[in-house]
């Protein structure tokens, strides 16, 4: 089975693109290396006068995002989100320059910190694809960019940095702004720009958290698992940011500001961890999906069970599977075989096609959220389809065998009816006329003996001819269908046949109840065939025993005490093959037991003799 999905695999690219791709693959790893070196250098430089939580945050803010990024890059070298993560980690590393005593480095660190705060918002919102998908997110990022460009970066030229930031270790006694053109802040910067910037920062972080919570809430099965940890962390982060900025404006170097400030230091590591946890939960979901599917799908699976199993495994109750019929004019049918419209992608629902041997076999309409896992969906479905296909083939085979057997039985039953009709017509027509003729001839004969003795002898001969004709016709009609069988059933018909058989025959078939005509005819003609075979073939035969008994079904044995034969070396005669077919057609079996010197037994069994009529005339539609 090969798999396919609408999103498809990667299209083939020209060689130039391949070279570009390999270059762009190496870049993130190089960036990771730079980042680590940068962080290490910053640490070494400032290690003595930096508080412990800050050192831990410095390292965690670099190492955790890089670890998550490295993990993603290993699976997907082109992963955009991983590159973004590395970028943010680099900004964080640059922010640790604020721990320097040098004015220029400190200033660059402060500027990096602003950019870092802005980039972190972008990173959170772009999880997990690395791109923004909704207008709301883009608006938020526009606001972030606006704050950065209008309210943050220009203040480098005019403002001193009177306020401490958590990542810097200098508190309120920090190096001056290396780029400041004035030694004092204009009033509107202190009174308007700074508070507005702080307010908007809180608004942006709260907006980002709300967006993530919303996405997680309305998302499908996979999205929920993926986003819930990030949304929770972003909410906590926004809250701590608000409390920190609030407490900082109340008291620049108070304990509250310091403690909450330390908490905000861990925003990036916490976000990185929640990215990792989200991805892990998503993986667990897929593993769990396959496990559930393997558990739910037994070897005998119906289309309904398959759908239920897939829906259960993928935790998507609305999941549908539609099947493509084979052939050039394939149609879509549902699990019950009803024609349906071609499956279409629609809001919240994605379509994954399942192919086998190059042919489209089925399509799964599932939660659009699983679109990223089309491979898994299609693999699971094609695995399940194999099971279903096997089951369907077995069913089809059984059904066609059943149908064949029933149609054969119907043919035989129709032939039997025709035989009964012919026998009856013979009896009612020609035979009665002959008998009437014979009786009238008897009258003429009696009269001729008194009135015309010379012709009496001729008339007597005519009487004999008519008698012989009547006997022949009677034997003929009996061979076609014995009147006794139709009128009185198996017991009487077999007893009568035994009495007129060519070899001494004992019939033990008393008290049998009546059965459908096709059953009675089958048993009767089977016994007759066996009886004739015995008379014809069994050397040294002294007699034949015919036994018919009821054991829920009908069971018959025709046994002779002839020479017997080795059944393995003697092929079935045409008559015997015909008998086997007849019995098979009414759900019965025929067995020949014989051995040299041990006579021959023809054993027949019709287990479900009473139900035959019902089974025979039940149409496939009625059965379904």
């Amino acid at each position, binding site marked *: 089975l090969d798999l396919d999905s609408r999103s498809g695999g990667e299209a083939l690219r020209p060689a130039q693109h391949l070279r570009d791709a390999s270059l762009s693959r190496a870049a993130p790893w190089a960036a990771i290396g730079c980042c680590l070196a940068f962080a290490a250098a910053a640490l070494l430089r400032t290690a003595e006068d930096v508080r412990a939580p800050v050192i831990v945050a410095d390292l965690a803010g670099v190492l955790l995002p890089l670890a998550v990024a490295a993990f993603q890059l290993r699976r997907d070298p082109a992963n955009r989100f991983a590159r973004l993560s590395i970028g943010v980690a680099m900004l964080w590393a640059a922010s640790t320059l604020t721990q320097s005593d040098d004015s220029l480095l400190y200033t660059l660190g402060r500027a990096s910190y602003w950019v870092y705060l802005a980039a972190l918002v972008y990173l959170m919102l772009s999880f997990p694809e690395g791109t923004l998908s909704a207008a709301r997110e883009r608006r938020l990022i526009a606001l972030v960019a606006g704050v950065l460009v209008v309210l943050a970066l220009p203040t480098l030229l005019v403002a001193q940095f009177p306020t401490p930031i958590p990542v810097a270790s200098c508190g309120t006694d920090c190096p001056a702004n290396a780029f400041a053109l004035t030694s004092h802040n204009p009033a509107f910067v202190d009174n308007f720009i700074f508070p507005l910037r702080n307010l908007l920062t809180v608004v942006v972080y709260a907006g980002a958290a709300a967006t993530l919570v919303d996405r997680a809430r309305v998302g499908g099965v996979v999205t929920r698992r993926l986003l819930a940890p990030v949304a929770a962390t972003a909410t906590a982060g926004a809250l701590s940011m608000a409390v920190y900025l609030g407490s900082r404006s109340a008291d620049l170097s108070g304990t509250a500001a310091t403690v909450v400030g330390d908490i905000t230091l861990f925003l990036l590591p916490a976000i990185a961890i929640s990215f990792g946890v989200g991805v892990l939960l998503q993986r667990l979901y897929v593993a769990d999906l396959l496990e559930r599917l393997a558990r739910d799908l037994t070897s005998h699976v119906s289309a309904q069970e398959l759908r239920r199993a897939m829906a259960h495994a993928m935790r998507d109750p609305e999941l549908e599977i539609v099947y493509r019929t084979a052939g050039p004019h394939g149609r879509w049918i549902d699990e019950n075989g009803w024609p349906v419209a071609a499956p279409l992608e629609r809001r919240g629902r994605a379509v994954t096609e399942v192919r086998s041997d190059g042919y489209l076999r089925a399509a799964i309409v599932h939660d659009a959220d699983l679109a990223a896992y089309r491979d898994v969906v299609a693999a699971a479905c094609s695995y399940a389809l194999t099971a279903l296909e096997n089951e369907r083939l077995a069913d089809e085979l059984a059904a066609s065998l059943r149908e064949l057997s029933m149609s054969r039985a119907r043919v035989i039953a129709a032939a039997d009816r025709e035989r009964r009709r012919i026998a009856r017509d013979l*009896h*009612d027509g020609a*035979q*009665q*006329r*002959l*008998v*009437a*003729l*014979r*009786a*009238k001839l*008897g*009258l003429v*004969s*009696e*009269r001729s003996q008194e009135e015309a003795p010379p012709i009496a002898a001729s008339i007597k001969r005519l009487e004999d001819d*008519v*008698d012989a004709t*009547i006997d022949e016709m*009677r034997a003929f009609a*009996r061979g076609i269908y*014995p*009147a*006794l069988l139709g*009128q*009185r059933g198996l*017991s*009487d018909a077999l*007893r*009568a046949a035994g*009495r*007129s058989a060519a070899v001494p025959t004992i019939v033990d078939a008393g008290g049998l109840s009546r059965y459908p005509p096709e059953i009675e005819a089958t048993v009767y003609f089977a016994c007759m065939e066996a009886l004739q075979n015995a008379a014809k073939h069994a050397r040294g035969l002294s007699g034949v025993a015919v036994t018919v008994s009821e054991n829920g079904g009908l069971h018959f044995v025709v046994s002779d005490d002839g020479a017997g034969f080795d059944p393995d070396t003697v092929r079935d005669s045409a008559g015997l093959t015909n008998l086997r077919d007849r019995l098979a057609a009414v759900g019965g079996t025929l067995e020949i037991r014989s051995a040299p010197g041990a006579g021959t037994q023809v054993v027949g069994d019709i287990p479900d003799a009473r139900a035959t009529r019902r089974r025979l005339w039940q149409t496939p539609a009625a059965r379904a």
Partner: protein
Amino acid sequence: MPVMEAPTDPRPSAAPRATPGARVGVLVVDDQAVFRDAARELIDATPDFVLLDEASSGEHALALADCVEPDLVLVDVWMRGMDGLATAERMHAAHPSTVVVLISVADRCDLPAGVASCGAAEVLRKQDLSPALLRRVWATHRGDP
């Protein structure tokens, strides 16, 4: 009170019904018109026998028998609906003194085992029927319940 009384029934079941000289009333039962015609001719040709009526089914025969009170009934074994055996059995039960004879194209050995126990006095082949056979049957079974 008289200890013994003569039977009030003028035709006790055990007594011969057709006294010498009286004609034997025959009822023919067969669903085949061709044979009923032949039987009519046969009975017409047989002195002292008279065809009382014909029936084309067992049910019809039983109803007729109540009216015409036949001495001899010829019943075909194979008939649609009520067959000859059932007809003979009921005829014998309703009219014990009537002689019921089953007739058939088939040999005795091709007939149901029940022909011996259904109350029929005799089983004959249709093609063997003749005035002489009828007289013999009547002579053998007359008055036999």
